[in-house]
């Protein structure tokens, strides 16, 4: 673990390249959407970010389960990395969702099930960090993080379903359009390609950041170990 692995460097370069291409595609390759106009371009990154956020969330829960079974610190670092990255992407997801909603439905916010669930996920992530911050013992911190990640990941689907039931029983029309229509524009092949490419790019970004973060965590552990050695 001393020097940066070649593969990681390659991944870094690949990610940057993909991001540049994706940005080009979003702004120039994909056509302008008939009804919503240019603001619709936000959609590509909005959904991709949401997808990564969800991926992180499940990753944190799985890392939590494995940690509880194996008690290997490495899984705790994995879980923490997943949460930290997830926060960034969910934040992007929520903010871009808001930017998209404003011109379309004349509101900065809509309690659409997906947006609501993303927000709740974000809050759970933040709570996870606050929980860890309040605990001194590293083993206990890891255990509690794992437990909360599991509990959180179970409640989020239920939150989504409850928001969905809420919608079907009480459809609310806000402003000038039906918010339920989010994402209900037909995608031309060009748009579909852009969409899939954005998804791919963001997945690359996720794994790149993830790998970096895990390395950072392990280096921090090494530093801590050396520090403890010098104190003896």
């Amino acid at each position: 673990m001393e020097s940066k692995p070649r593969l990681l460097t390659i991944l870094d370069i690949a990610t940057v390249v993909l991001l540049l291409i994706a940005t080009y595609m979003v702004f120039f390759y994909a056509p302008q959407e008939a009804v919503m106009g240019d603001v619709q371009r936000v959609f590509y990154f909005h959904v991709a970010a949401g997808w990564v956020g969800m991926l992180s969330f499940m990753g944190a829960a799985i890392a939590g389960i494995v940690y509880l079974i194996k008690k290997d610190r490495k899984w705790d670092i994995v879980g923490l990395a997943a949460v930290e990255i997830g926060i960034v992407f969910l934040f992007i997801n929520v903010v871009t969702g808001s930017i998209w909603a404003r011109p379309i439905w004349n509101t900065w916010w809509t309690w659409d099930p997906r947006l609501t669930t993303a927000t709740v996920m974000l809050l759970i992530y933040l709570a996870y960090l606050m929980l860890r911050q309040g605990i001194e013992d590293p083993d206990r911190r890891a255990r509690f993080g794992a437990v909360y990640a599991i509990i959180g990941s179970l409640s989020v689907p239920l939150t989504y379903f409850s928001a969905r039931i809420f919608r079907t029983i009480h459809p609310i029309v806000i402003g000038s359009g039906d918010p339920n229509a989010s994402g209900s524009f037909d995608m031309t092949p060009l748009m579909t390609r852009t969409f899939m490419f954005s998804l791919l790019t963001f997945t690359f970004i996720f794994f790149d950041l993830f790998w970096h973060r895990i390395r950072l965590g392990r280096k921090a552990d090494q530093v801590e170990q050396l520090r403890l050695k010098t104190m003896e």
Partner: protein
Amino acid sequence: MTIERQSSALPGENTTSKAAGFMRAMGAVVWKDLSAELRSRELISAMLVFALLVILIFNFALDLNPAQRREPTITAGVLWVIFVFAGTLGLNRSMAVEKDRGCLDGLLLAPVDRSAIYFGKVLGNLVFMLMVELIVLPIYSLLYNVNLFNPGLLLVILLGSIGYVAVGTLLAAMAVQARTRDILLPILLFPVVLPVILAAVKASTGFLDGSEMDLIRPWLNLLIVYDIIFSAVAFMVFDYVVEE
């Protein structure tokens, strides 16, 4: 003074007594919490006073009399907000008692399954929460001229409280071991308990408005599913939260 040694046969060595031991320990924990509370009445009075204060604040913030509101009734929403916040007080306090004098260690030293301790605590917390809810209901009824003696409503209150307390007890056990213990519990609990709140409020409103069962049933189902999933999961991970 002489002390006779206990007989050499130790209790709880076979499976039937194991189940009996479980129930006995769980019962002991519940009895302990209820006895201590009966004597000091600190918990219930704190929760009640808090609940009444919240009603008071809402009274000035909103118009709670259904006859005078133009929008649909918000009774259920207000009630559940009260229950959620008062419930947090109860959960915090119940766990703090164990932490403060190291009593949690005392519980962990006993030769019983950790889950007996968990269920004992959950049951105790549930009793406290239900007691507060059952006192708030008539008071609210009187103040705002709403009939809250609705069996459907009572069912929802029971189901919702179970889900809330099942997750809350687990999270309180974690929160109480952290430095930031007091503010941490609501932060951990509220995002996770949202499905319960939403379902409980919707179902409660449904019963109060006299809606058709078809509209209410999905919410009841959601509550039941939540209760089952989280009771099971919390019971499985409780060990990890109290062990060292």
